């Protein structure tokens, strides 16, 4: 007889987790920590669909926790839904399904990680998977001083590695002044890397990829699109012939540059094309 496996967890159905700890990272960014061994074991670049009961469901990169069997989401309050998630209180429940998507392909050697805003989340998880032989350069990009996140956490995660952490703010109130991409350009002028991993605003990733490929450096980026199902059924996350939630979210830079939607346009919730350029 076909036995029903109902007693096992159904990864594609929201599973409620209690928020056990909240960290205010910046005035607009919070990390919500919960216990869940499945999420805690997700690979770097993977995401979950997060249900805020009664409100909406959002794709979120899976953040690490320093404790075992825990995972987290780091959310910036933005529209109605992310604000609702941001406002969740200790002891309240969120639903998670996943993990979904592929992951970064971690090369050995000297790695450059380039993250902007909450795009740092998958890169922080990547740090959990590196070996002591890795030499890591991490660029943390933010608009202004009090939006810089994960600096201390990254330092402690990298304590056994040769590493450098470069912080940059657009207004120069902390770290270097200017765009993340300027830092990358400077670095690539001085040195080289075995691989570059990036996640953040699409135009930032677009430029990072162009720079990396001009120096023949392996580069991967994690892409965001509107996601409704997260599992390759609804099509809302499509980018040209790619279904980002299933083919990605991590793509090789060389592949992305051939994709004429990447860096230029995305589809809104109705599936209509919108241009990035007009929004930045």
């Amino acid at each position: 007889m076909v036995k029903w496996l109902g007693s096992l967890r159904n990864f594609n159905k929201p599973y409620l987790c209690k928020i056990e700890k909240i960290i205010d990272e910046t005035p607009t960014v919070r990390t919500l920590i919960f216990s869940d061994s499945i999420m805690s074991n997700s690979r770097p670049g993977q995401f979950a669909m997060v249900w805020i009961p009664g409100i909406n469901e959002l794709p979120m990169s899976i953040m690490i926790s320093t404790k075992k069997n825990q995972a987290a989401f780091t959310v910036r309050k933005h529209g109605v839904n992310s604000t609702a998630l941001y406002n969740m209180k200790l002891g309240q429940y969120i639903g998670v399904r996943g993990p979904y998507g592929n992951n970064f392909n971690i090369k050995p050697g000297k790695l450059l990680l380039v993250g902007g805003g909450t795009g740092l989340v998958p890169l922080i998880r990547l740090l959990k998977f590196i070996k002591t032989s890795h030499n890591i350069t991490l660029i943390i990009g933010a608009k202004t001083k009090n939006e810089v996140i994960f600096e201390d956490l990254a330092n402690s995660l990298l304590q056994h590695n040769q590493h450098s952490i470069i912080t940059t703010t657009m207004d120069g109130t902390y770290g270097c002044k200017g765009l993340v991409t300027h830092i990358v350009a400077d670095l690539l002028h001085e040195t080289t890397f075995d691989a570059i991993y990036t996640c953040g605003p699409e135009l930032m990733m677009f430029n990072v990829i162009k720079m990396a490929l001009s120096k023949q450096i392996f580069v991967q980026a994690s892409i965001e699109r509107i996601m409704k199902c997260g599992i390759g059924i609804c099509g809302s996350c499509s980018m040209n012939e790619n279904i980002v939630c299933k083919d990605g979210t991590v793509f090789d830079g060389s592949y992305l540059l051939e994709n004429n939607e990447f860096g230029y346009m995305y589809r809104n919730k109705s599936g209509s094309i919108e241009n990035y350029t007009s929004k930045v």
Partner: protein
Amino acid sequence: MINVNLIKNIRLLIIFMNCFISKMKPDISTHIGPIFIDNPTILASGILGISINIFNRIYSSGAGAVVTKSISMLPSSGYDGPSLFSVGGDGWLNAIGLSNPGIDNFSKMLRQNKKIPIIVSLVGSTDIDFITMVKKLQNSKILAYELNLSCPHVDKVGLDVGDDPELVYNIVKKIKSATQTPIIAKVGLGSTNYLDTIHAACDGGVDAITAINTLRAMAIDIDAMKPILGNKIGGLSGRPIKTIAIRCVYEISSKYNIPIIGCGGIFDWSDAVEFILAGASAVQIGSVINNKWMQIFSDINQGLTNYMSQKNFANIGEMVGISKKF
């Protein structure tokens, strides 16, 4: 004498070889009334079908045709999430809410189509909605229109239209006089007898029926004590609905002389065969795309071909509805 014998023998040889060849390689192309496709696997509406690039990828993966998301007059963002999740047993609940870019954006994109057999799914409330959309698409290469008379979770469209046979008759009749392109009516189980809807569509001159859409359903999370779907109620798809869909195809084909596209819970080639034996001339593939990805089309075609060889069917037509003989 020798010559005649030789000719006879060559003839026999040819007949024998033809038998052999047709036995080796059954023909899986299929006619759905006036619609002809290379193989009977069609991507169902609402599944990935958002852009020409995706249509092309799916067609290249082996689908005989693709159906677009249901397109409406105006763009729509759809419902809040969760809008899709698993209920186990390869069943899914969804309430996407018919999000789509609207006819103007969509028709612009569709003009790029050169070679893909695309069936455009349309959703609307009145005959005027449908006619307007059909007119806007008249310069595009389109295999057929599929009228969504069966979405179970959006007001005033889908089932709300399908449940009104008179309206269905009007819509079909008017579209038929506005275009040469074949019209398919997609039905589901609503709050009237779906056979009446089919009757009306046939009277209006519809070319084929797709059966069935998702079934109205819901799930409540017992910890949150709330319905899970953003829209609370949605549609059940996948394995759990297969036996219901098979019953509908069998019923329709027993009662009406109209080509049918079977849909609902198809998971592998044997399900596709079951639909064809029940009376379907082709099948649509929906939620299973999650498990088997785009590979599913060629997998089904391969399995179907093997089955036909084994059972000595030369073409799909021979199989359609054969279970009704018993």
